[in-house]
């Protein structure tokens, strides 16, 4: 609580009267639907994902991907010397399923592969990492949004996306300076940035970020992009549930990654900060929301690398 009070004092004293350009350093983007504020920053950040070959090998050894095979049967099949899905192709009973799974691995789309994994594996299974491993590093898109409320009919305040380009991590944040009025422009810019990306990476996005984005796009009559999505929350829960008090991104950062955020506001306060901004037009409030969003996205990259190492 003390921290928050200090932050508010700082905003009121230091940032009052400063322009957004001075504080955040972005540009105003004009779109056919109005405008929004865009901040672009670049970071040196490493991403480590297990090599694709290693995961492919793990994939074909997972007999439970074949419909009808669970733990017990898998053990029995191993005793018969059937170790990989390739081996199952020779068994008449599994021939069709096994070969279609191998087809998906070799030639199938990322959607098909993700659908198969979701159908057959538990959430948070490490084999899900085959999704980022199979695509180029440049086609990953790290997403985090800040909104007005937790309802899907809310409005976007900040939309942050991160992607790799020439080995450097680019972070683009769209900021709504006028609630709702700027939302359409943010989404429009987002749709442009999404082109060429194949895989969304989020934290808790399955239940929040992705449905909200889909709903907001549908609200304006836009078709949401068909992009596969990987939610890191499930990995975090599977691995850290027993050792951490909770599985919030900030807790993981502190206890596992050994990072401590300085002067960060908790996500719950974002709507309050935004309404304070609306009343005072002090861009200091926006700065803190944007910083919070930035930290979240950078942590996504770190967390993905961490999970790959486990």
């Amino acid at each position, binding site marked *: 609580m003390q921290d928050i009070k200090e932050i508010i004092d700082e905003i009121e004293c230091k940032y009052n009267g400063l322009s957004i350009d001075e504080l955040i350093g972005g540009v105003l983007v004009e779109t*056919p*639907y109005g405008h929004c504020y865009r901040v672009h920053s670049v970071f040196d950040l490493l991403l480590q994902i297990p090599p694709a070959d290693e995961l492919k090998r793990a994939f074909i050894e997972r007999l439970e991907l074949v419909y009808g095979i669970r733990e017990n049967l898998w053990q029995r099949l191993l005793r018969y010397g059937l170790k990989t899905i390739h081996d199952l192709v020779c068994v008449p009973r599994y021939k069709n399923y096994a070969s279609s799974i191998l087809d998906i691995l070799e030639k199938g789309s990322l959607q098909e592969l993700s659908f198969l994994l979701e159908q057959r594996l538990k959430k948070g299974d490490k084999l899900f990492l085959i999704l980022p491993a199979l695509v180029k590093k440049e086609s990953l898109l790290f997403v985090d949004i800040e909104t007005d409320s937790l309802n*899907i009919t809310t409005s976007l305040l900040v939309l942050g996306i991160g992607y790799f380009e020439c080995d450097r991590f680019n972070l683009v944040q769209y900021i709504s300076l006028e609630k709702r009025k700027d939302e359409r422009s943010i989404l429009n810019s987002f749709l442009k940035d999404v082109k060429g990306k194949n895989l969304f990476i989020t934290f808790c996005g399955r239940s929040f970020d992705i*449905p909200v984005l889909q*709903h907001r796009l*549908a*609200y*304006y*009559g836009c078709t949401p992009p068909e992009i596969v999505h990987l939610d890191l929350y499930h990995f975090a829960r599977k691995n850290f549930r027993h050792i951490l008090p909770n599985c919030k991104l900030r807790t993981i950062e502190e206890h596992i990654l050994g990072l401590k955020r300085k002067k960060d506001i908790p996500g719950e306060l974002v709507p309050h900060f935004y309404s304070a901004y609306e009343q005072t037009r002090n861009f200091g409030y926006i700065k803190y929301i944007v910083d919070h969003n930035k930290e979240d996205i950078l942590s996504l990259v770190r967390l993905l690398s961490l999970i790959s190492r486990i």
Partner: protein
Amino acid sequence: MCAYFPLFRESENRSFIERIIDNLRGESRTRKIIILEERDGICEQIRSPLPHFARDYLLKNGIVSLYSHQARAIELIRAGRDVFISTGSGSGKSLAFNIPILEHLEKNESATALYIYPLKALANDQIKVLKELVKRIQNPINPAIYDGDTPKYIRPIIRNRSRIILTNPYELHLLLPYHSQWQRFFGNLRFIVIDEAHIYRGVFGTNFAYLLRRLERVAENYGTQPIYVLSSASIGNPEEFGEKLIGRDLSVIKFDGSPKGKRYLLVWDATDNLEGKQENILAQGVKILSKSIKEGAQTILFAKTRYQVEKIYNICKRLGIDGVRAYRSGYAPQTRREIENQLKKGVARGVISTSALELGIDIGGLDVVIILGYPGTLSGFWQRAGRAGRKNQDALIIFIATDDALEQYLLYHPEILTDMEFESALIGLENPHILKGQLLCAISELSLNPSKEKFFVDNISIGLLDNLSKEGKILKMDDGTYVGTVMPHRLVNLGGLGDEQFELVVDNNVIETVELWRAYKTLFYSAVYLYQGDTYVVNDIDIDERKIKLEKVEPNYFVTPLICSEAHIVDEDVVARRYGNFTLYMGRLLIHEELIGFIIEFEGCRRVKVTLDDIERVELPIPIRPFPVKPDDFDTKGIWFDISWKVRASLGDRFPGSIHGLEHAIIGIAPLILSCDRWDLGGISLPSDARIFIYEGIKGSAGLTEKMFERFEDLLKMTKELIENCKCDYGCPSCVLSPKCGNENKPMDKRGALEIIKFIAKF
């Protein structure tokens, strides 16, 4: 008295129906018996054969061939037309649309259908039939109910898997803003089924019509245009109503090909004081019920209120009549299912019900239906009467007429019950108050760009968009698109007009919400309020919190507010039509209502009248105070006419009473033509200007005025007959007295009213 009475041959083979009629015909209260002749079924073949599942189902249920209306419905739905099936109750309407819909869903693996029922109980009843039908289909269809009772954890599964979803308007209203979760369902929506369509009239119907526009708007956003299937057993104007409801032309199937057994309609006069014989109305109902059950007929008695149901049930128990059950809303669902099953199996020999059993819940056909008191509409009457008759067997309908004006009229004109067309179901799409709330909902669901919009394009909507954005409830973007800033769905009530709402609180529980204009008239301090058969008294009113606190007591008094109304004509779009000796006008009105006092009636017939000026000064036994906030004047539509100076001169001093009586009588008889309640209409008679206003008591109008204007001649004719046939000397509640008159029915001149009609209409 029984001039039309057909004599049955005295033989052992008389059916029990005939025995009951014989038994009742000797009674002096039996006014008339009408015979509705039996009718053979007309079957028809359909062009391409039925799908396998349907043939299998029909065979198992012993159905050899389809009736002509079913065949036609199947052909039309197969051709992708919007259809309104408007045939009698029990004619197999559900089967007629279920077959082609399931056929389509069988062929198209992603297509979906939405069934909308006005009551949860109807959906619970229909799901059984659907589940039985889909058993025979290979493709998964998973019909499911999605309403307020659906557990949270099943909801996503239904959204993602079911291809037939049964819901109600209230649930649909609340789920529409979350349409992105329903992308699969709405994106493949092929059919919208609206069962019991006649329910959607008046304010509720107007809201519902806009709800359908919103649904279609969402479906269009996901790239589909669904077709509509409407069904109703009792509606006078299916073409006009259907088109207004869905916003486009539709094919109407009216000709009923199903067979019907012989039906008798017996009209019973339950007037309190008949030839010096006083007999309680409820006791008369019980007498007939017990006679009917004794003869072995399975009987249903429809009473008007829950209170009556309980009272009659008590009398039955006291008299030891076996096998009788009571049925009304408010009972636990299991109890209701149990009673329904007992009726279907024939274990329960008699049931006393409110309108809860009126709509299509399957309880099988019964032998005798007793209707105690006119349900308010002809369609309601036949909905109830439709419960009588198994397949081709004889059935008896007994109508017990009480003192009410309409019922007395029907007593002398029972042919109206059988010959007149059902009332028109009316909706008022031009009502700006309803449109405003619905438009706000629509914008919060999908952004609205006037240049691309297809559904909300009329002038009223465009005007409202401007107003709403000025009020800050929506935002106008640079490219002209409007976006919502609030989620209004919880505030927009499908049965209401978007007025300020007050919560009724009993022991910290909210039992109901009421709009300000209604609260002003019924919920002042110490007002007695009836809710679900219990009596409450207003204890406290908290204006800031919008709460009215009630206490459950049994007061020994009843308070009626005295309200004085004024009408101002808004001088735009006034339409005029010349009738006989007068001109009838129709136009927009501004109604100003003013509370002028109260009448307190104590048990034992003591009456106290107190005006608002006196209320502070006079010592009252109960602390009555008016409602602290006054509603604004409201705009509505109405008709008015002036009466010639010649009549006025000839009536002299009697004129004010005459014009007053005429106004009351017209309003009393109007529900026979308009599908509405007496309380939906208001009237003002101005003796000084010799003018009568009759207007809709609904803010912004619900479409009643146009019908009234169109059929005013019939209305006047019926009013004349009503007054002529009434046997009272100086006016009674059956003719010119009104239960809600602000002037205590004074002055009043019944004969003068008749003279006015005779002069102006030249009948």
